[in-house]
């Protein structure tokens, strides 16, 4: 699953997630925000999980965040880093930390989004040191 690998990643692209993946392909990290209650959420849904309004839309996140927690899957070849990154917008997302010295990764570390090729023109948002 290491995104440094050039393998194609089997993304699930459906009517609800397609704009998210199209955004990522253009270098945009999209989260979903609600016009009714003003709150953002992740992962993106059509109906707001805070207030149940259907008045939601994709918005571009800054791409900046901090590592909330992480783990190195040592048995994988090569080992990879899974993490929750808390975005500046206040929501956390599951992701990978890439292009870093694995043993120097720390909770609280500032990270910035980058996009890893996923095949078929799609890209996967991952994070690296800011």
């Amino acid at each position, binding site marked *: *699953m*290491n*995104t440094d690998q050039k393998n194609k*990643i*089997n*993304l*699930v*692209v*459906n009517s*609800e*997630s397609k704009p*998210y993946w199209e955004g990522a392909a253009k270098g945009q990290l999209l*989260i979903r925000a609600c016009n009714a209650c003003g*709150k*953002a*959420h*992740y*992962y*993106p*849904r059509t109906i707001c*999980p*805070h207030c149940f309004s259907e008045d939601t839309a994709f918005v571009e996140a800054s791409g900046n965040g901090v590592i*909330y*927690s*992480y*783990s*190195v*899957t*040592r*048995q*994988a070849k090569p080992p*990879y880093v*899974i*993490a*929750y990154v*808390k975005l500046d917008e*206040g*929501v*956390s*997302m*599951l*992701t*990978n930390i890439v292009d870093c010295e694995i043993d120097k990764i720390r*909770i*609280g570390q500032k990270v910035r989004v980058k996009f890893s090729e*996923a095949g078929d023109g799609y890209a*996967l948002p*991952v994070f690296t040191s800011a």
Partner: protein
Amino acid sequence: MGINGKSYIVGIYEHPCRAALDKTLPQLHAEIAKGALADAGLSKDDVDAYFCAGDAPGLGPINMIEYMGLNNVRHMDSTETGGSSYIVHVNHAAQAIAAGHCNVALITLAGRPVADAKEGKPVRYYNQQAPDFPFEMPYGPNVTNMYAMCAMRHMYEYGTTSEQLAWIKVAASHHAQYNEHARLRDVVTVEDVVNSPMIADPLHRLDCCVITDGGGGIVMVSPEVAKSLKRTRVKVLGAGEAPKHLAAGQVDLTYSGARWSGPKAFAEAGVTPADIKYASVYDSFTITVLETLEDLGFCKKGEGGKFVSDGNLISGVGKLPFNTDGGGLCNNHPGNRGGMTKVLEAVRQVRGEAHPKVQVRNCDIALAHGTGGLLGSRMGSATVILGNEAA
């Protein structure tokens, strides 16, 4: 309508096999049902309610009721919350019996992941239709790294150490040495745990549970039926169940759903953590136990590391004997679903039928807790409190 005192556990069975190469999945369920009913002194024709979860093949109760020839079922439930399902089932069976829907409820769990792997059968993949799947699966989440992130964050916020987590495995191994069926029977030390290979930082191999085949079953009945049986009856005093998830992105990995299921169970039972003489706590990983003990109120949030240290969970040594069968960490984790075995050992303790080396004296009130799914994302939590006739 509460459930306190309205039903009893009168039969249990834990399948002794840990690798079921010569048995089918339905066969395991049936052997378990037979064992649990025999323990209760009841027959299959007495069963009027059947409960099973996602481990049961086909349409769950429908296929299994047919296979086992349960001819008098008038109530069924296939609630699926992963490994905690069977504690949810105990709660639901207690509610159904209290409401008069049934008098004799049978709950079964069986699994054969070891045999399936040896036979080259594909592992059951997580449902791609799950709404979280598109946004999580590309990053390589697995059971271990998703629990590991909880441990990492708990260490960061509260200073919990790997040595403290290791004490949980040490305690389980002390108990497992007396269980002839336990998958791992060697007593281990804190050093053994922290020096075992790192699987997903900060969890080592010995922070992880075993993978086994087998299963278990429970028979629950109304007070009237219980009184007609010879078997020592174990009263269901209270239960609680709760989902916990990523809350639309407000992620907090330092607690589990036990924060909600526990207080419900305690309130219904009319007892407090101080009254619990023995606790079966779901132990998929050491961190699962640590967070759950805090959430159930056995110690303050963040003090779990201190609480589990120095043998405090070892029967005869510490204040809170836990998982005296060796738990999922050493004994058995049938089908990767540990909720059932948690109830079974709690019943043995209340009956006074645990191994003499680990039996808790005057065990009048015991607790069993299950966690299903992933501590690091979404889970079903369930707590049940059991007592003897006087409780």
